[in-house]
């Protein structure tokens, strides 16, 4: 049995495939259909061949899609032998192939693990930036991109809280800002930012963040902040600051 190939698939910020037997990056020479095959297997675990063919070639008859899949598998095998594992009617990337999207998912899960090192989590956040396959508009890419976006936003908020609890206030504020940028109307991200400012003792920054959010919400949606936000800012020890009067 051949040893598992040493390979890395990157899908965040664009497609890239590194394959050791070829001595480096091979993605530049890969036809688009082959790139899409590798990418789909990178974001899914062990899909049936029929599902892969249907997702990658949705606008042609099934028999043509199956033919295109066979062609893509043959081309990929010539360039990166052993990269794809076939088992009965399913396809998957071979064991040991690294995929940045899977690392992102693991990173998000580890944030909620109290034994995980905050240092490792911060380093991984910087490495796992970027949107999934920008410029690709296949339906399965759009759905997966959105799933990862949601996962990242929740993880960033949790990471900011962990950093604040660890006394790493500057990094906590930065993580919260990244979450806010991902969706400026998302209130939980703004609450995280305000908590991070408060943890550092920056009362004025917290008030400023609240006022900015309240104004934006009123301008864009004609809505008021939630009860949870009001509860948070009502506790601010600031004389003459009554957020409820702003609504």
């Amino acid at each position, binding site marked *: 049995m051949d040893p598992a190939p040493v390979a890395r698939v990157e899908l965040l910020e664009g497609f890239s495939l590194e394959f050791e037997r070829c001595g480096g990056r091979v993605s530049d020479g890969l036809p688009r259909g082959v790139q899409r095959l590798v990418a789909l297997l990178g974001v899914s675990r062990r899909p049936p061949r029929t599902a892969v063919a249907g997702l990658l070639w949705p606008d042609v008859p099934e028999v043509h899609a199956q033919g295109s899949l066979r062609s893509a598998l043959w081309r990929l095998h010539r360039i990166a032998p052993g990269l794809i594992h076939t088992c009965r009617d399913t396809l998957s990337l071979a064991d040991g192939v690294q995929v940045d999207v899977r690392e992102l998912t693991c990173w998000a899960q580890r944030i909620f693990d109290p034994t995980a090192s905050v240092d490792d989590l911060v380093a991984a956040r910087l490495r796992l930036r970027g949107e999934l396959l*920008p*410029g690709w*508009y296949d339906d399965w890419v*759009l759905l997966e991109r*959105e799933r990862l976006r949601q996962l990242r936003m929740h993880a960033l908020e949790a990471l900011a809280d962990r950093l604040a609890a660890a006394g790493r206030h500057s990094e906590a504020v930065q993580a919260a800002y990244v979450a806010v940028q991902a*969706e400026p*109307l*998302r*209130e*939980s991200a703004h609450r995280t930012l305000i908590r991070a400012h408060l943890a550092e003792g920056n009362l004025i920054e917290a008030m400023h963040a609240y006022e900015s959010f309240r104004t934006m919400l009123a301008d*864009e*949606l*004609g*809505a008021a902040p*939630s*009860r*949870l*936000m009001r*509860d948070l800012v009502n506790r601010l020890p600031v004389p003459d600051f009554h957020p409820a009067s702003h609504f």
Partner: protein
Amino acid sequence: MVTLNDDRSAALLIRVWVEEGTGGFRSRVSSIDTSGGEDTGEITVAVASSTDDVLDAVRRWLEDFTRRASDPIDTD
């Protein structure tokens, strides 16, 4: 020269989330040009917090998309 562009496609993405403590939802409606030309990324079409506003945004976007898709393009 006037040509008809018959390969226009787009996706409309409606992100909706419940904002805890408000009893309602918020949403962002974004358009993505999937025609395969220049990558323009996501463009926010509307933000809304009511069903009617979301539906109005979808209707406006569809009407605008179909009008532009059927417009002849003057390439002179």
